[in-house]
């Protein structure tokens, strides 16, 4: 599909700007180009669930990253390491060559292997009564995945609140000691 190729080239340019730019705000906004381009590609490849999810996730990550990094002093760290850069570029060349060898083995773009999913598609609506097949899979057939998902969101929130609370206790304890002196 020609649309997918055009959007992928746009995303590669956005990723290059995000990595190479010296301004932090510019880098974070260029990361937004990559995320919103992926959202459009999901819409073109017939996955509207994921398109909505990716759009919302991208906006939230943009808000939090700008809140966290936007006010910081952007010290530009100069990097001139020819040996390390050349070694890394050679490694990435090897990665691309081997990935091309793997790409010719998997099924072509547009004709997937659908052994498991044809069972879900044929029987899923009759067995669960849900018209949305993605919901039927993530909430009925594979709901243990979803339990792990909820546990991950829970533990991330609790862990971050714990880190912050430890910091504030340390700073108030220092201030109390200083007031005593």
């Amino acid at each position, binding site marked *: *599909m020609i649309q997918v*190729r055009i959007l*992928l080239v746009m*995303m590669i340019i956005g*990723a290059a700007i*995000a*990595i190479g730019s010296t301004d*932090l705000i510019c*880098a*974070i906004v260029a*990361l937004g180009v*990559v*995320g919103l381009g*992926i959202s459009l*590609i999901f819409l073109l*490849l*017939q*996955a509207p*669930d*994921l398109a909505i*999810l*990716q759009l919302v*996730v991208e906006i939230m*990550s943009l808000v939090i*990253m700008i809140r*966290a990094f936007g006010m*910081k002093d952007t*010290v530009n*760290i100069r990097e001139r*390491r020819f040996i*390390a*850069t050349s070694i*890394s*570029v050679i490694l*990435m060349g090897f*990665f691309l060559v081997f990935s*091309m060898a793997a*790409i010719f083995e*998997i099924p072509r*773009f*547009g*004709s*997937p292997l*659908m052994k498991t*999913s*044809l069972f879900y*598609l044929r029987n899923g*609506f009759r067995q669960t009564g849900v*018209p*949305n*097949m*993605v919901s039927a*899979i993530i909430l009925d057939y594979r709901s243990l*995945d*979803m339990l792990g*998902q909820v546990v*991950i969101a829970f533990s*991330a929130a609790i862990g971050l609140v714990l*880190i912050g609370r430890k*910091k504030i206790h340390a700073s108030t304890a220092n201030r109390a000691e200083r007031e005593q002196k």
Partner: protein
Amino acid sequence: MVEYFLCMVLFCLGLYAILIKRNLIKIIIGLAIMEYAMNLFFILLGYKKGATVPIFSSLTEPHPEVMVDPVAQAMVVANVVIGLAVTFILVIIAILIYEKYGTFDIRDVNKLKG
């Protein structure tokens, strides 16, 4: 084939940022780009030519044979939110490092200080 190759190039750009850059924020951005490329590869594998969304609109339409792969989409739904949580944890750890050392440069972080 061209779509798969461009997706691999996007993955390599994220790998480059992790290997070369010395700024912590650039490393987090590289990790996010790798995660996007991985999600995209799943969906590219599950696309069927001329197919529709895997949602039934009535009791008989559309047929199950003309739908795209729903298992890949279900896996990516689980993946995206894990990626968001991981990005937030990395952001807060980077801010704590900035609070302790006063910089995002990873060469100054390996000093044993305090």
